[in-house]
């Protein structure tokens, strides 16, 4: 289920921890699996657990606990907007409203063409750069304005 490339990346993580503590690599391994497969199905989680010699339920506990794992399919571009108080004071909620209107979807919805999913985020530790949008969990876009959001959406091909 997981490619050689992904397994190699997992091996590199496993090497960071003491020999008896392979399970420590499960968070990173699930990220790599999500990167490869788009989202984490029960089978994907079981494959990760199997590779790390841990019970599938223990890996599922991790996958369901942390916010950035996707346990259901998401659009090609997952945009997460922080709307927490410090961000809201500098336009976080308004940026989210603008995105909703622009994409025609609410939080936790995906556009009909499967391109965009919109999520409401909790604190990303970047309050001074608000409004902040995290694209596909990894790329942070700061100081967003209506123009910058238009540009970002245009760049998502």
């Amino acid at each position, binding site marked *: 289920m997981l490619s050689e490339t992904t397994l190699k990346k997992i091996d590199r993580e496993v090497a960071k921890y003491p020999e008896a*503590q392979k399970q420590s690599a499960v*968070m990173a391994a699930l990220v790599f699996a999500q990167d490869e497969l788009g989202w984490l199905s029960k089978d994907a989680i079981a494959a990760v657990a199997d590779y790390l010699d841990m019970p599938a339920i223990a890996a599922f506990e991790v996958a369901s606990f942390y916010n950035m794992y996707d346990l259901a399919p998401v659009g090609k571009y997952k945009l997460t907007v922080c709307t927490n108080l410090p961000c809201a004071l500098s336009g976080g909620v308004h940026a989210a409203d603008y995105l909703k209107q622009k994409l025609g979807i609410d939080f936790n919805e995906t556009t009909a063409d499967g391109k965009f999913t919109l999520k409401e985020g909790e604190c990303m530790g970047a309050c001074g750069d*608000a409004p902040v949008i995290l694209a596909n969990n990894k790329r942070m876009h700061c100081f967003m304005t209506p123009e910058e959001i238009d540009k970002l959406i245009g760049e998502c091909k």
Partner: protein
Amino acid sequence: MALLEAINPLLSAGWQKGGHEWRLENDNGWRLKDYEARGGYQSLKKILETKMSSDEVIAEVKKSVLRGRGGAGFPTGLKWSFMPKAAPEKYIVCNTDEGEPGTFKDRDIQRFDPHAIIEGMIIAAYAVGAGRGYNYIHGEIYELYQRFEDALDEARAAGFLGQNILGAGFNFELFAHQGWGAYICGEESALLESIEGKKGQPRFKPPFPANVGLYGKPTTINNTESFASIPFIFRIGGEGFLNLGKPNNGGTKLYSVSGHVNRPGNYEVPMGTPFAKLLEMAGGMRGGRKLKAVIPGGSSAPVLPADIMMDCTMDYDSIAKAGSMLGSGAVIVMDETTCVVKALERLSYFYYEESCGQCTPCREGTGWLYKIIHRIEHGQGRPEDLDLLLTLGGNIAGRTICALGDAAVLPIQGFLRHFRSEFEYHIENKKCLVPPDVQRAGSTFFTRNMGQA
């Protein structure tokens, strides 16, 4: 300006303040050669060359009165001294799981000074006799996690990490571990669970991590800014560091200023700097509007009204005396366009969303608190709701394994203490004292390009 000359040259001296100009790709000051040019790794070299004993290192940190920069303010040197000497396997862990709303200082340290964290952790490892360490990095800052991996590679290649460091016969391995979105992992024992590959649910304490920590072994866990302050302490001496601040509040500290100011950003100032000065450094109030309230130490700290805040100095003792806490140094500034009910509603939703679900008072109670504030905000509040919030809060605080329960209650107590009449207005009139168009103007999303400020 004397104030600015006193700041830590290994920390924020070269940072661009509150700017839009920063971009990951054109920021080149974080590499090993740049850090060394600023005097980086000199403290580690000095400690190893002069063969300082671990007790001497800890004594120097104690002398500096560096207090934990993650929020609790516990003296770092004292924490180090709790580590059992004889244990064969010990760990050092850095807490970069920065997700307390309002706090964004550790992200800038990761961004501009990853080697200051590494050097601080190596010195800590030497002091407590740890052979291995982990830096747990907030999931949302993936780009900086990768940068830290690069910085670790540089430090290994230069002989600062690994076996027989700088020929002094001391071994230390350091790795990065990435979080993936859970506020609770900023709690130290939840963070350790998370490194072990589990749900991040806090552990009962005692035992404390110094006795039973990562993988059940003695562990010292400190905040990123605490570790990054260590090299500077050994450059100017513990006493010199202490004297930068004020008694019982050593050194300089980073304050993350967010909200209704002209230049949100991180500002490093000596402990005890007047709040008014910090506000001025952050460019003053956006649009010249009037200050209404300030949350001085991250979302869990009780809010303070403008007049009380303007009399405070930024240190643990002054803010505590005013009835709040310095916490992580996250200063959330709110002007007169803010609806305090809506502000509290959003914070309460956060604690409800982030409760780990382990303890019933917090799991259930945070949801109840949010529901009540939500109905007040939406014109369905009842006169008895305000007392209900306080009673409910009293049944959560102090009845949970970790402090998240307390953290959910403190903002409610603070807002009701100072702004009760606005909540009453909401309940009576089913609308806000601050008109919706005024509130909308406050964020300036549609009217002003923040970046060009």
